[in-house]
């Protein structure tokens, strides 16, 4: 088990390096520069800027510096937001995205598993149809529609909730969390339902029932364990994606999270910031996937690491 974890952690390094190098190359290929704007800048000023940021050096020197920075865990200074270290940007914006993402995911898990399980135990009943219809809607309605509709109803018509902005843990969080959560809630409900349906038909459940266990015990102790495996494997990448920032929700609700920075960093060709966020996100995805694999070992008795 320890060897497995170590081996996986070691393979993370070349994978992150590949992702970061590709990103770095793509920024080079993309036309324009962090300093190019609506107005043309005189050539001499461009020279000054390139010299200041070391862009006049050969590509391997710049690449080496970038890799060196990552190795030291210091992503350098943002080119666009002068004087702001990328690490500091990550430190201030990540908590916002993480709080938002975690809350949304917890909500999605609770509601999704609950309604999925209920639906699976009463297949083709009214409850089943109702929850699966709701899930279908949740999957089909994109968050850039759901968010504004919530705002329209609760902020602009009823004047109950503030339409946007970050105020820490406050009522401001309700609509963004709901908006973000809807899709995942729906997915999890469907995954739980199909996983549970399959498990409930399996032999070991029949055995459990034959032993004379109550339906509740069968469900909670035996069925749920197996039925949730698809949810667990879905959760790794989903959670990694959620807590590293979600562009649409952060923009619609004007939240100072990582997603906002990421989209703007790309538009601004802000290389250190893009590299920093990409490196951070890819590490997060790899680690969450590792966590999923470990969880599998705990939940499913057939899996041995």
């Amino acid at each position, binding site marked *: 088990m320890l060897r497995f974890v170590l081996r996986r952690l070691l393979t993370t390094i070349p994978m992150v390096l590949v992702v970061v190098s590709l990103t770095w190359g793509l920024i080079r290929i*993309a*036309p*324009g*520069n962090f*300093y*190019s*704007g*609506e*107005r*043309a*800048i*005189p050539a*001499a*000023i461009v*020279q*000054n*800027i390139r*010299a*200041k*940021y070391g862009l006049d050096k050969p590509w391997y020197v710049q690449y080496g510096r970038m890799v060196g920075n990552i190795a030291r865990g210091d992503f350098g*200074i943002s080119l*666009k*937001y*002068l*004087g*702001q270290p990328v690490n500091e*940007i990550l430190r*201030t*914006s990540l908590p916002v995205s993480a709080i938002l993402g975690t809350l949304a995911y917890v909500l999605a898990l609770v509601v999704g598993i609950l309604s999925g399980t209920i639906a699976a135990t009463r297949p083709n009943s009214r409850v089943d149809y109702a929850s699966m219809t709701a899930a279908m809607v949740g999957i089909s309605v994109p968050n*850039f*529609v759901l968010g*504004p*509709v919530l*705002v*329209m109803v609760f*902020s*602009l*018509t009823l*004047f109950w909730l*503030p*339409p*946007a*902005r*970050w105020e820490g843990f406050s009522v401001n969080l309700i609509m963004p969390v709901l908006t973000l959560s809807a899709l995942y809630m729906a997915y999890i409900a469907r995954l739980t339902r199909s996983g549970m349906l399959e498990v409930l038909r399996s032999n070991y459940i029949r055995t459990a029932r034959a032993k004379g266990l109550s339906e509740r015990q069968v469900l909670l102790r035996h069925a749920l364990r197996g039925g949730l495996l698809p949810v667990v494997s879905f959760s790794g990448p989903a959670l990694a994606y959620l807590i590293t920032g979600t562009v649409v929700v952060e*923009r*619609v*609700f*004007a*939240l*100072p*999270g990582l997603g*906002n*920075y990421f989209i*703007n960093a790309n*538009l601004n*060709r802000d290389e250190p910031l893009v590299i920093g966020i990409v490196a951070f996100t890819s590490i997060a995805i790899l680690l969450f996937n590792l966590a999923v694999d470990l969880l599998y070992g705990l939940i499913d008795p057939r899996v041995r690491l």
Partner: protein
Amino acid sequence: MVAAASLLCIAGCTKAASHGRYFGKVSPPAGQELRYISGSEPESLDPHISTGQPEARIFLALYDGLTEIHPLTSVPIPSMAERWESSIGNTEFVFHLRANLRWSDGTPITADDFVWSLRRGLAPALAARAAYMAYDIEYAQAYNEGGVFVKDPKTGRFMADPDSPEHRLVLPGEPKAREKALAAEDLAGARGQQFVPARAEDVGIEAVDARTLRLRLMRPIPFLPGLLTHQFFRPVPRGPIEKYGDAWTRPEHIVTSGAFTLQTWKPYDRLIVVRNPMFWDAARVKLDRITFYPMDDYTTMMNLYKAGDVDAVFNHVPPAAWVDDLRTYQDYMDKPEIAIEYYMYNTTRPPLTDVRVRKALNMAIDKVALARYRRTQKPLTAFTPEGIFPGYPQPAGDPFDPSRAKALLVEAGYTNAAGAYDPSRVPVADLELTYNTADSNKQVAEFVQAQWKQNLGLTISIKNMEWKTFLATRAALDYKGIARSGWIGDYMDPYTFLALFSTVAGDNGTGWFDPKFVDLLVAANREIDPQKRFERLAEAEKMILDVQPVIPLTTQATNWMKKPYVKGMYANPQDLFAWKFAYIEHDPAKWAEDPPPVIN
């Protein structure tokens, strides 16, 4: 998103109908506090570094200038300088500073601060993007570009510039480029001489005494006081910059000169400024604090405005689809702005090398209809914005005239055997309309495309491009035919638009360049009498309209909103506000009126 926006509008219409004269909730904040949406996250709070409007809106609170922007008309008004005079044909200006100028940490602001600041802004190592704003100041460009003077080692005298004998000759600092420049015949005398790099001390700014500042210019710049309202010329504090480097703009280190000083800065969240008691005009400042909210999504901004969570939004925020409705409210701000939209022609490639084709395509577009369709624009036939420069005798461009357009194409030889206009002869494959990706740009492009189809029978394809790719393509004249463009004036003078064509490079983008045009501009700026100068500038503008390297489309309208209790903010052509004039009026009886500002 569009669907959601229109849903919101429907909600907006019904809600507001019940509320009456103002859009959304009207509930003033308790004290003298203003909440303003300022646009994208500021790049930096260093006025030498940031060049954008979102920053400029904030800089007007933090940094004062020799001159400030008039809240109603945008013309320059005295600020740190209580008066000034120009001499030697507008090539030298003397500014007299007020006696009670202090930084927010209490240290006095003297003429030396202005000298140090400008030198810092121009230092090549700082790499300020807006340094070109100061290039008209003597040797500012030479210093910023790392140029050299030519010195005779025997006499110690500097060689004069053959084109402008009152100034020293400046050559490129980089040896290869210099060799090339020296190949020119009239510079033969410079070969073998000593090359002396231009230094900060050579820049034409001088502290005559603690309260007197002299600026020497390379050429006559009658509009200098207007230019000086730009953020690049607002002084920055030497002490904190030398101590903290790039980190000097952090709330714990920053020292400011304006009506306000920085209290909190949370990126992508909020930036709060509070009253600066050291400000020379502190008695006038009524607001205790301003909270600037940086954000990017326009619908979100309007939601916040409607819900009453902010008191004003910056210009161009209300989406065009809402404007017909918003116009019916008293809190909608609608005036012409110092900004135009136009299309550039690539005049270096046929068929647009032919002025008749350029004129024909221009005359086939109904700009009045375009402006009506766009809602937030006013029609434009000339090149400078119409109706914002008092006294400027603006020439008129060609009117909408499809039959004249066809006649021009006939003259250009696009005829069938019978000699009548034949659209199929026009090489539309060599024409293409390129715009940077944005819904509004697409709408305009489709509108113009339809006009050409309808009025000339030409099907010209349109193509969108990502912003930075678009800029690179346009600058290199790599576009086929026609490309979108817009220009926001830097200062309140027609020259800021006309100067686009004073070089072949830069923001020109059309490939059209005529030394005679440049001579006209130079002559205009030598003129001491402002009215005569305007007449010369109008001649230059007429020349643009005759050669038609562009298709003028529209003048921007201000298009922003403020709650009725916000006073001292007006729809001025630059939509930049000297915040010392702004305040919250808690008495609803006074909401209907906007009293004019009192300028000292």
